[in-house]
Every structure is written in structure tokens, then in C-alpha cells.
């Protein structure tokens, strides 16, 4: 455990404690998308010689900083703006990832760092020594923020309120620094006063209690005053402003819902269920909802569907639905329940450090699971657990593992626990989005494993204990050690568990939390008739990436003729075989009913069984109490019995998947029986449809009777008198509804001996479309119709192409003509009578792409590009973009790739930008081992620029760009680039011929020890020394002077705005606002020195350039250069790029 000294206290990485913060935004301009305001932080120094205060702030423009009403100088340095400063030709991802992780560390609030460094005015030093309170007042503004705050301003007539313009805070993990200066950490709690002055027609929704709303003097605006008395981390502060419609929850008056104009009826329906979720959580946690109020806001262009903040949640407006919509209802309710679970764990209870994140995500995910179980039933819950388990297993096997609780020993590169990944897991901001989703998934699964171990009762007691400790602490006045009770840590959580349950779960934690990887079991068995023993062999694969070895108990359930028996096997190092005694003699009494696990007794037709064996089926780890993948071999009849008679839905699903490999009439019968069984879980039946289609295709030559499922569908959903006509829709029975939707989609996958979709099936689906009649239905049929189009798309098979002829109307296949006719009509009707969430348009676009891809229709991205434009509904845009991405891959179109990448940079909707990168990563135009005309130097440069500096405003987007770069080019230098000349020189010199020369970092990297103790150093120095020291410190923030140039260049850009109140320094070297006289002298001195070293560096640079030309001649010279640098104390530092490159893995071995 990497707990910081003892469990009791949380040791702040900062030399001060924040107790209260005021955020006041007094002007919001929707037209210009700008925000003006100030913050005031009340802090108590905890060390005597506190001379500088580091805060987080990104993209804010800071006008003025005052500490206790005295003007204070400050420096703004954000190394994440541009990760690798030199216009380096490295282009290797390893290098970038290290540099990026270092850059994030350099401003990480959990390490006491920040982008904004404020000097405490010297007049206050005495004051500070007495550890007296400081008030830091910062005036700032934001102009067209690219991240953190998102403005939605529809382009139409009317004032902002009429247009439905709104703005809200958003972002991934701690992103509050994007919209106001703060300590952007989940572990720095304080109380809040929030003030927003907005247009009188608007509402500002924020955290805590709305104390009052007051008009401004001109009565045109009003100010919303919020107080949040529960200590809260800045990262949990949020804001939404817009002309919202207000709905007070009729069941709980302290809960208020907000939505955009005209959507009130939908809001009423959507939120009418929320109180039940409240009741559920409060009941199981035996704890009242911690905040005095709760607000839900539904906004457009959401960053994520659900974002939870202290006492409020921001949802995507697309979750709203009317009573007519079936499919969206459970999804939306899930989102509401998730948001509410995070209110308790995530907002109210925060985390100590990033490595404790898994506890919060785990607990909130776990109680959300309990809610699922209660609301949707055990079947749905187990299905969900299975789904999540399959996902995490697949992801870990693909990428090499997800580590819940990373331990970083002293920050050494060698200890990197996730070296298999192309990004650092040390910070949330360097994490791939997919990894983070999987991380959350694993966290709640592990919580479930803990529950299995200690029982649910104890589990809930632990949660209750955490909550009650926190709520006691929250009501206290500021006492730092009390407030830290509101922070959860891994060790604290584990201690709580052992206190409450008295059980030792250390092995479990070690296995699943402290190390990554899942278990892969291979099982097979033989029945020994003589000994009446089942010989079970369980092998493990623990050498492949993403796997680990499992040692411990494993439950095996054997269904025999005489009943179902559980056995617990001990999986040990070397034992593969396990003998399990059987209880039943084979075939003693044929007539007897067979008892199942749940006590039910059923008649079975045992004729399919092996006459010698009493075994019906065997299941390994039926309760999913190991994070594993099981590949188990048993004969087809056993799978069939399992499907028919095992009552666990997970077992049924497993059996269905296994039966795909056994295309026999018996399998067909078992599947059809399941399909018809109305007691059977609907998802199992849906799955059976697809399996049946696969089996039918494998059996195509021997298949008898009508196409699979056709007669079944006819019996269930068509008129008795005219079996070719479907009944008018009635979706009152949801199970039937889902089956009715799915069956045609599965049927369309059927193929005849020529590998074409049977004409009969196509006609059947066309008839379903033709006779579809929803007039008498209480529910909308948009999802049903959309799936019928999906079915049409599924029926499409590749066109028989003669000499690669151009696709024209004349040679159009007649079946395809029918399909196109339907698609055209549907797509056009959508323009006149749009369906909910435009599901039909989405399906049509997908179908058109399928037709293009199969060569029936000329491949052309123009249609998709028009639907992908801003202004279409987000689902439609995603579907269209997916088609463009696919086109880019299939047709290797450079033009489309450029179009997509431009959109990544310029689209107004952050979610779309993220999604494009995500889709490109999942369906890449080429991969690292592939020759492609698209893979060229320009693309490398473009993507490099995108992740290096183009995406600094959105963590998620930057990590998405990194993912894409990795998929396209891999970790090392992209193969399409010429070898770097400089790297070769270095190699020869250092005699490291074995290394791949392409991954050597720049020559700046030398064997220097980085000065990584700068912060401590700076703080330990008394303020008498400050003058002499300050030079060094300033330099340290800036890497080499060359780097600082790049950095300054950035800041100049940032500052090139008309209304700067504090005048810039004439030299323009450092972004500093010398407002008081005393620090000015210090700084001017500094700027001189940096100027000096700047010259110096220029010199360097020229040398390098020369070197490139005559490399061997200057070998010696180069060495000299390096030495010179070593001497120079200003030149290097712990700046991300250089420091990391020293320890780059390529050099360390």
C-alpha cells in the first residue's frame, strides 16, 4: 500500500489549507462566448515560510491577483499546452507519452503543483509566519473557452433566451481549472459561495443551496447566490446557465429539474421515477441523501451523458423521452440511478488520490448494480454482470491489463506498473477513455467480489460507516483533520472492511486491485465409470498478456441425474486434475423427475444422453466470483440440456454461444424451444435468434422446412386468418416487443446454398414493413421500424461484379432495388415526420453504407458528409461519421481522412470530436504493420501536432488522439518517416548499437540527474534567501530556455488581446505582472538572466543545425556541448520533455 504515513491523517501536498472559496461570475456574454469574474480563496498557511501559492488554472486570462488586498505577482506556466516544446522530429509515442505524463505531473494539484504560481507579497511574510489567514483574490476572464465550459448558442433570430442558448461546465475528471482558478483536486475540500449574474430570462443552476436571487439595479439581470456549506472539492463544482424550464419534483420538493424550453412535458415524464431511486439508495445505505437539495439539468451537446457534481447532475437532453418510447426508458433510468449513486460516492465522499479512484467508482457502481437488481430483476442484473465481465476480460486480454490501484514507487520509470500501455496511468488525464471506462467496470466488479467474500450486509455497513463519518465531518467547522474524513482512501476502505466484517480480504485485493490481468481457464472433463468419478481438468493460461495466475477456491456445479451439486475446488500451482465424485449411478431410474439447483423438479427426455454417464451439464465458476474467461468443453447434448433446464440466464447464454459450434437438428430444436418459451428471459430468447440463424446457415444443405424462425414469427405476431400479414402493433407486452424487433434482424442473416439471403425471407421482411400499422398502438414504433431497416441491411450480400463495372441503376439487382425503394421512402418520410432520436435516419444511413460496401451502389461519402454536419441530431451525425470513417478505410481516401481530422479540430461539439477519434481508432484506415498510401509524413506531423498542442483544452480528446496515433503508428517512430540523422550520431557515441535508433530522444537527453526536488527546495529555503533563489526557481519552471521560448510564445499569443489591464513587460520574455514595486526588481533581474541564457541557447541551436550537415566531424563538438550544458544550472530542469527523455526506457536498459 502506498498510504502516506499512517491511515489517520491525510497529508496535503500543499503548504497551505484551503477553507473557503468564492466564485463570482458577474458577466456572461453568449454572443462573444465570454465570462468575466473573480475568485477569492481563503487559505491558511501550514508552513511558516510559505512564499508562493500554486493554483490550477487553464485557459483563463488572469488580470490581477491580490493577496490580502495587496497586489501580488504571478506566473502562469502550463506545460500541457504544448507537450514537446522543441520542434522535435522524434515523433515517437513512447517519448510523447512520457513527456505528457511529466507535463501533467508538473501541474498536478495532488503533487502540490499548479499552472498558476502566485508570489506572496513580501509585506505579508511576517503575517504568513504566524500562519494567519490569507485571502487570494483573482480577477479572471474566459474568452471563447474550448474546454471546461461549453456554450450552446443556436444560430437563429431572437434574444439568447428565446434561442435557447445555454452554457454548462463539463470535462473529464478534475477539469474545473478550465473555467476558474482553483485547487483542482478531489482532495482539497472547502466550503463555497457561488454567485452568477445572468440575464433576467435565464436561470443559473449550481451547487449547494440557492440562498436568494436578486435583480441588478437596472432590473435586466439577476444574481443567483449559492452557498455550499458541505466541504467540497473544486473538481465537483459545476454550473449550468440557460433559459431553463423549472420543474419541482412532485414527490420531493427539495429536488428541482431543469430542461431547455419546450421540453417540459418530457422532463415531467422522465423524472417522474427519480424519487424511487432516492428511496432505494437511502434505504440500503441507511443514510439520508447528504445534500439539502438536488438538481438535475438536461442540456444539449453534452460532454458525457451523465456528469455528477455536488448536489447536482448534468445530463444530456437526449435522455428525455415521452411515455410513448419504450427502449429509451430503461436506459434513461439507468443514467439517473448512476448519477444519484455518484452523489453519495464521488461527490459527497471524495478521494484522497488518483489511486483511490477505484474505491469510489467501485462503490457507486456496486450500489447502482443493487438498484438494477431491484428494479430490473435478478436476470437483468446477472446478464449485466456477465456483460461487464466479458467486456473487461476482452479488454484486458487485448491491451494487457487494467490496474485499479497503481502504486508508484518514487516515480521511477522502471516501476511503471503499466508498461504494456501506450499511456501513463499515473494521472487520470493521461488515460485513454476506453481504459477509464473499463477501469470503472472492473472497479464495480471487484466490489461485487468483495461482497461475495464478506456478504452484502457487511458491505452496506461499511458504506454506511464511511457516509456517517463523512457527514459528521462535514458538519464541523474547519478543522483539517476532520474534513479529511470525507476523503476515501484504499487503505481506509480496507480497514473499514476488516473492522466491520472481521475478515481478511487482503488476498482478494492483492489479486484484483493491486495487480492487473484476468484469469483464463480452459476446462475439459472425462467421466470414469468404474470409479463413478468426474475427472475435471482445469488449465490456466497465465503467460499471455493481460492474464494472471489464479490460486484459490473455484466453484464447480455439476448437474447430475440425481440433482445439482456444488463443489469447491482448490486451484493450486501444479494441480490440473480434480476428481469429483458423482452422486448418481447412470440411468438407474428413467422415470424419475430430475431435481434442479433451485429445487424445482422437471421431466427431461434423457434419450440424448450418454448412457454411461449420469452427468447432464457442468459449470465452472457459475457465480462469476473470479474475473475470468472460461472455455469449457462438453458435448453438444450437455449444452442443450444446460440451455433448456438450467435456470440461470448466464448459463443459458453461455450454452447458446457454445451451441453455435454444434449445428445439429437437436441444437435447432433446443433453440426453437427456448424461443417459444415465454417464461424464458427475453434477452436469452433474443440471443437464441442469432444463434439459430448461424446454425441454420451451417446446416443449409440439410435444413428442412421454412426458413428458421419464420413460422415462429408468423405464429406469434401474424394474423390467424392471413399468416402473411402482421398484426397491428401492440407493444404492451415488452418481452414480445423485443422479440418482434429482433427476429427479423436475425432472420435476415440467413443464407441459402448460394450464400444469398433467401428470397422468401427478404419478401417476408418487406411485407412486415408494408403491413406495419401503428395506429392503434400506445407506443411509438420508431425503434421497431429502424430494426426492420437494419434487417434489410443484414440481408444484403456482396454484389456479383462483372469486370469491376461501374455501379449504375441499370445493373441494379432487383432485390436491391426493392430495398432501396424502402430506404428512400423511409429516409424521406423522416424529413416530414421525424422519429424519436431519428432512429430511422440512423438505420437508413447504415443501410446505405452497407449497400455501398457490398458494391450495389457506388461508394460515395457525399451523402454521409452532409448528414455529419453540425446541426443534425447527434445520433445521426455519429452514424454518418461512422460511414465516412468506414469509407476512409475501405477506399483509402486521404481527402476524407483530412476532412475527419479537420472536424476533430473544429467541430463545436466536444462529444463529436471525441467520437471521431474513437471511431477512427476502432476502425483505423491502416495500422502500424500495414502498408498504406495514407501513411505519410504529413499525416504523422498532423496527428503529432494534434496531440502535442491541438487538443490541450480537452483531456479526453488528447488521449483520444494518442490512442489513434498508437493504432496507426505504434509506440516507436512511424515507419514512414526517414531515420533521424541525429539519433544515429548519439548512438555511435554512446555505443548503444543494439538500440533502435529511431526511438532515441533528442540530444538534450543526457545522463544528468534531473533536479526534481525543486519544490521542496524552494519551500525549505527561508525567505531571506528568496532573492537569491528566485532566479533558479523561475528558471526551473521553464525547462531549457529554448523550451521557455516556446512557452512564452504561447503566452504571448494568449495575451494578444486588446483589453489587458496589467501592461506587459517590454521584453515579453516572461508572463508576469509586476504590479507592486518590490517584486519588480526581482523579476527584472530574472528576465535579464533568462535573456542571457536565451542568447546562450541560440548559440547551441546553431551548433545543432550545423551538426546535421557534418555529423561525423562534429561528434566531438557535440560531446562538448553536452558538457557545457551540464555546467549550466539554468538550462535543464524537471521539465517534462527533457526530464522524461532521460529516463526513457530505450536508454535505461
Amino acid at each position: 500500500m502506498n498510504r502516506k504515513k499512517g491511515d489517520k491523517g491525510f497529508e496535503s501536498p500543499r503548504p497551505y489549507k484551503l477553507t473557503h472559496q468564492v466564485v463570482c461570475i458577474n458577466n456572461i456574454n453568449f454572443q462573444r462566448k465570454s465570462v468575466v469574474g473573480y475568485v477569492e480563496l481563503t487559505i491558511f498557511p501550514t508552513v511558516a515560510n510559505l512564499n508562493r501559492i500554486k493554483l490550477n488554472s487553464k485557459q483563463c486570462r488572469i488580470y490581477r491577483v491580490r493577496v490580502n488586498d495587496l497586489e501580488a505577482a504571478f506566473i502562469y506556466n502550463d506545460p500541457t499546452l504544448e507537450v514537446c516544446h522543441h520542434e522535435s522530429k522524434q515523433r515517437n509515442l513512447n517519448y510523447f507519452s512520457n513527456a505528457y505524463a511529466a507535463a501533467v505531473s508538473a501541474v498536478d494539484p495532488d503533487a502540490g503543483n499548479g499552472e498558476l504560481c502566485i508570489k506572496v507579497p513580501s509585506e505579508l511574510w511576517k503575517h504568513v509566519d504566524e500562519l494567519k489567514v490569507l485571502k487570494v483574490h483573482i480577477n479572471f476572464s474566459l474568452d471563447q473557452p474550448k474546454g471546461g465550459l461549453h456554450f450552446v448558442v443556436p444560430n437563429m433570430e431572437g434574444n439568447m433566451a428565446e434561442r435557447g442558448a445555454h452554457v454548462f461546465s463539463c470535462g473529464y475528471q478534475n477539469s474545473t481549472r478550465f473555467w476558474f482558478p482553483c485547487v483542482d483536486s478531489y482532495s482539497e475540500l472547502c466550503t463555497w459561495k457561488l454567485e452568477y449574474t445572468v440575464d433576467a430570462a435565464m436561470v443559473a443552476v449550481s451547487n449547494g443551496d440557492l440562498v436568494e436571487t436578486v435583480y441588478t439595479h437596472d432590473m435586466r439581470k439577476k444574481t443567483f447566490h449559492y452557498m455550499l456549506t458541505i466541504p467540497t472539492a473544486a473538481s465537483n463544482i459545476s454550473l449550468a446557465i440557460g433559459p431553463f424550464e423549472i420543474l419541482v419534483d412532485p414527490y420531493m420538493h427539495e429536488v428541482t429539474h431543469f430542461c431547455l424550453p419546450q421540453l417540459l412535458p418530457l422532463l415531467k415524464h422522465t423524472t417522474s421515477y427519480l424519487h424511487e431511486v432516492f428511496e432505494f439508495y437511502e434505504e440500503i445505505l441507511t443514510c439520508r441523501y447528504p445534500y439539502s437539495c438536488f438538481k438535475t439539468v438536461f442540456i444539449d451537446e453534452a460532454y458525457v451523458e451523465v456528469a455528477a457534481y455536488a448536489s447536482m447532475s448534468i445530463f444530456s437532453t437526449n435522455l428525455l423521452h415521452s411515455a410513448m418510447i419504450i427502449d429509451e426508458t430503461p436506459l434513461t433510468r439507468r443514467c439517473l440511478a448512476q448519477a444519484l449513486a455518484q452523489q453519495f460516492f464521488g461527490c459527497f465522499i471524495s478521494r484522497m488520490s488518483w489511486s483511490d479512484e477505484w474505491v469510489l467508482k467501485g462503490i457507486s457502481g456496486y450500489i447502482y448494480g443493487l438498484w438494477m437488481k431491484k428494479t430490473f430483476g435478478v436476470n437483468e442484473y446477472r446478464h449485466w454482470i456477465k456483460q461487464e465481465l466479458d467486456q473487461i476480460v476482452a479488454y484486458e486480454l487485448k491491451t494487457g491489463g487494467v490496474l485499479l490501484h497503481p502504486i508508484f514507487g518514487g516515480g521511477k520509470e522502471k516501476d511503471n506498473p503499466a508498461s504494456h500501455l501506450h499511456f501513463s496511468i499515473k494521472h487520470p488525464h493521461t488515460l485513454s477513455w476506453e481504459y477509464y471506462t473499463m477501469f470503472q467496470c472492473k472497479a464495480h466488479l471487484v466490489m461485487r467480489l468483495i461482497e461475495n467474500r464478506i456478504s452484502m450486509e457487511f458491505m452496506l455497513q461499511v458504506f454506511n460507516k464511511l457516509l456517517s463519518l463523512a457527514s459528521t465531518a462535514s458538519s464541523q467547522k474547519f478543522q483539517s483533520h476532520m474534513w479529511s474524513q470525507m476523503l476515501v482512501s484504499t487503505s481506509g476502505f480496507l480497514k473499514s472492511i476488516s473492522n466491520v466484517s472481521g475478515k481478511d480480504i487482503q488476498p482478494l485485493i492483492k489479486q484484483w486491485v493491486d495487480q492487473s490481468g484476468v484469469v483464463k481457464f480452459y476446462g475439459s472433463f472425462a467421466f470414469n465409470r468404474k470409479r463413478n468419478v468426474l475427472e475435471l481438468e482445469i488449465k490456466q493460461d497465465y503467460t499471455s498478456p493481460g492474464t494472471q495466475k489464479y490460486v484459490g477456491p473455484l466453484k464447480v456445479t455439476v448437474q447430475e441425474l440425481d440433482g445439482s451439486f456444488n463443489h469447491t475446488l482448490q486451484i493450486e500451482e501444479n494441480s490440473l486434475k480434480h476428481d469429483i465424485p458423482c452422486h448418481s449411478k447412470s440411468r438407474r431410474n428413467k422415470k424419475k423427475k430430475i431435481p434442479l439447483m433451485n429445487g424445482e423438479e422437471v421431466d427431461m427426455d434423457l434419450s440424448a444422453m450418454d448412457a454411461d454417464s449420469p452427468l447432464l451439464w457442468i459449470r465452472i465458476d457459475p457465480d462469476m466470483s473470479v474475473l475470468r474467461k472460461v472455455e469449457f468443453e462438453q458435448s453438444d447434448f450437455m449444452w442443450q440440456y444446460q440451455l433448456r433446464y438450467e435456470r440461470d440466464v448466464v448459463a443459458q447464454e453461455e450454452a447458446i454461444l457454445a451451441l453455435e459450434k454444434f449445428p445439429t437438428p437437436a441444437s435447432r430444436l433446443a433453440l426453437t424451444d427456448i424461443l417459444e418459451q415465454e417464461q424464458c428471459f427475453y434477452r436469452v430468447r433474443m440471443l437464441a435468434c442469432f444463434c439459430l440463424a448461424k446454425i441454420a446457415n451451417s446446416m443449409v444443405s440439410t435444413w428442412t422446412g421454412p426458413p428458421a424462425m419464420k413460422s415462429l414469427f408468423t405464429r406469434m405476431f401474424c394474423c390467424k386468418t392471413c399468416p402473411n400479414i402482421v398484426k397491428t402493433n401492440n407493444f404492451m407486452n415488452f418481452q414480445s416487443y423485443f422479440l418482434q424487433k429482433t427476429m427479423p434482424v436475425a432472420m435476415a442473416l440467413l443464407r441459402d446454398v448460394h450464400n444469398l439471403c433467401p428470397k422468401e425471407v427478404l419478401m417476408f421482411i418487406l411485407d412486415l414493413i408494408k403491413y406495419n400499422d401503428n395506429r392503434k398502438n400506445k407506443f411509438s414504433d420508431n425503434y421497431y421500424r429502424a430494426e426492420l431497416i437494419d434487417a434489410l441491411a443484414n440481408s444484403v450480400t456482396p454484389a456479383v461484379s462483372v469486370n469491376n463495372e461501374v455501379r449504375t441503376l441499370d445493373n441494379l439487382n432487383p432485390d436491391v432495388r426493392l430495398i432501396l425503394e424502402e430506404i428512400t421512402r423511409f429516409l424521406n418520410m423522416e424529413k416530414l415526420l421525424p422519429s424519436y432520436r431519428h432512429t430511422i435516419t440512423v438505420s437508413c444511413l447504415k443501410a446505405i453504407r452497407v449497400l455501398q460496401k457490398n458494391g450495389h451502389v457506388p461508394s460515395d461519402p457525399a451523402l454521409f458528409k452532409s448528414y455529419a454536419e453540425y446541426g443534425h441530431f447527434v445520433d445521426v451525425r455519429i452514424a454518418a461519421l461512422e460511414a465516412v470513417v468506414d469509407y476512409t478505410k475501405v477506399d483509402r481516401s486521404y481527402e476524407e481522412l483530412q476532412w475527419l481530422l479537420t472536424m476533430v479540430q473544429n467541430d463545436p461539439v466536444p462529444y463529436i470530436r471525441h467520437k471521431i477519434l474513437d471511431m477512427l481508432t476502432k476502425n483505423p484506415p491502416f495500422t502500424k504493420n500495414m502498408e498504406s498510401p495514407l501513411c505519410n509524413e504529413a499525416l504523422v506531423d498532423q496527428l503529432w501536432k494534434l496531440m502535442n498542442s491541438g487538443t490541450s483544452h480537452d483531456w479526453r480528446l488528447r488521449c483520444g488522439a494518442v490512442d489513434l496515433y498508437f493504432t496507426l503508428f505504434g509506440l516507436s517512430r512511424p515507419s514512414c518517416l526517414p531515420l533521424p540523422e541525429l539519433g544515429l550520431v548519439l548512438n555511435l557515441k554512446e555505443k548503444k548499437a543494439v538500440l533502435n535508433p529511431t526511438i532515441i530522444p533528442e540530444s538534450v537527453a543526457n545522463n544528468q540527474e534531473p533536479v526534481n526536488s525543486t519544490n521542496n527546495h524552494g519551500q525549505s529555503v527561508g525567505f531571506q534567501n528568496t532573492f537569491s533563489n528566485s532566479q533558479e526557481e523561475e528558471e526551473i519552471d521553464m525547462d531549457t530556455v529554448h523550451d521557455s521560448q516556446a512557452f512564452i510564445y504561447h503566452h504571448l499569443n494568449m495575451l494578444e488581446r486588446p483589453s489587458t489591464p496589467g501592461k506587459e513587460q517590454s521584453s515579453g520574455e516572461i508572463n508576469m505582472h509586476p504590479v507592486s514595486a518590490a517584486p519588480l526588481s526581482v523579476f527584472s533581474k530574472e528576465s535579464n538572466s533568462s535573456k542571457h541564457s536565451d542568447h546562450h541557447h541560440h548559440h547551441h541551436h546553431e551548433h545543432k543545425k550545423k551538426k546535421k550537415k557534418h555529423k561525423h566531424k562534429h561528434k566531438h563538438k557535440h560531446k562538448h556541448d553536452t558538457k557545457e550544458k551540464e555546467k549550466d544550472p539554468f538550462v535543464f530542469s524537471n521539465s517534462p520533455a527533457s526530464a522524461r527523455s532521460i529516463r526513457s526506457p530505450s536508454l535505461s536498459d
Partner: protein
Amino acid sequence: MLHSRDISEIGRSAKSYCEHTARTQPTLSDIVVTLVEMGFNVETLPAYAKRSQRMVITAPPVTNQPVTPKALTAGQNKPHPPHIPGHFPEFPDPHTYIKTPTYREPVSDYQVLREKAASQRRDVERALTRFMAKTGETQSLFKDDVSTFPLIAARPFTVPYLTALLPSELEMQQMEETDSSEQDEQTDTENLPLHMSTDDAGPEKENTSVLQQNSSLAGSRNGEENVIDNPYLRPVKKPKIRRKK
């Protein structure tokens, strides 16, 4: 001899007497009283009736009704209803007064009906969309042909979520219609075989319960509205300085 005037007087008086005694049909005694009143000796009447040279009036000879030719009769003549005395003329032939609305035999075959409804709707939709496509901008899947599968061009919305989320007018109308018939549909669901196992019936059950709640909710809301104390419903305060003045 009796005058006709006397006869009518007898009838009139007799009716008056009978009405005087609250009857509608005169009886013998009424007539006797009348005759007495008129100064007629009633006792002479029986003798007069039995006189030998009394005149007997024979019944009028029955003339055969002209038989209407068969060819002209259409249908059975309607018999007299009880309030029309039997001697009145018969009703005319039915064809003179019976109306026979003429329309084609109603199609009651379900299959044909569905077929018709489906193709009618399809035709309308196709015609409408083609019209829209002809009058506006289009996109095409084939470069060489723009008319066979004309797609109405995609046009971005200023507020895309509104059209995507709000039910269309048609759906709203349907909702109202089904709402009015909700009563029987509700009972329908109850009649549905409740074969779903308790495990997986979750979302479904809620859905219906929420629907019910919603309708009850709308009613109860109005009453509560006044009681709710929610900071967002409170009136906006005037600026403080103004209050000081």
C-alpha cells in the same frame, strides 16, 4: 218518423250524458235518458220494433275488387297496423315507399382491408415524398440518375434536439386517441397472461405503473403547488440598495 236532425240530436245528447258521467262510450241508459229528455215515449219502442211491416235493409252487394295484375306487384304489401281499421285501403306496393340505399357490398375480408390500407398509405407516402423531393433540393445515390431514388436533401436544424425528442403532431394525435381508449387497454393489460417471471418483468411493470402515476400526478399537482417551498419558485428580490432608499 224520425228526422235526421233528431238522430243527430240523440247522438249529441247521448254523448253529452255519457261524458257527464265521465265515460267515453255512451251506454243504453244514456240514450234512454236522451229520448226521455226529448219527450219521446220510450216504452213504445219495443212495440215499434216488432211491427210487422218493418223494412229490411239488405247488405250492399259485394263488388269484386279489380285484381291488380301480378306483374306489377313488388314484394308483400304491408298489413295494416292495429290502429288502422281493416276496411281502409291496403298499403300501396312496397316499391312505392321503401328506399333501398345502393352501395357495393362492404369489404369485410380482413386481409384485403389490410392490404388496401397498407398500399394506400404507401402510395400517399411515396407521392408525398416524391413531390417534396421534386420541389426541393435532393441528393442521389447514383451519379447518373437523380430521379429514381430521390432523397430529400439533409438540412441542418438550428435546434436539432427539438425535432428529435418531441413527439410529432401525428403521434400526439395518436396519443390522445389511444388515451381516450386507455381505459379498456388498461384492463387489457390486466387480462394479459401474467406469465412473465417476476425477475424480468421489472421494467414493464414500472412502465405501466408510471403511466398511471402520471395521470394521477397531474391531478394532485395543482393543489400542492401553493405549498411547495422551492428556492427556484421564490420571487426574485429587488436590489438591496433600492430597498434602503
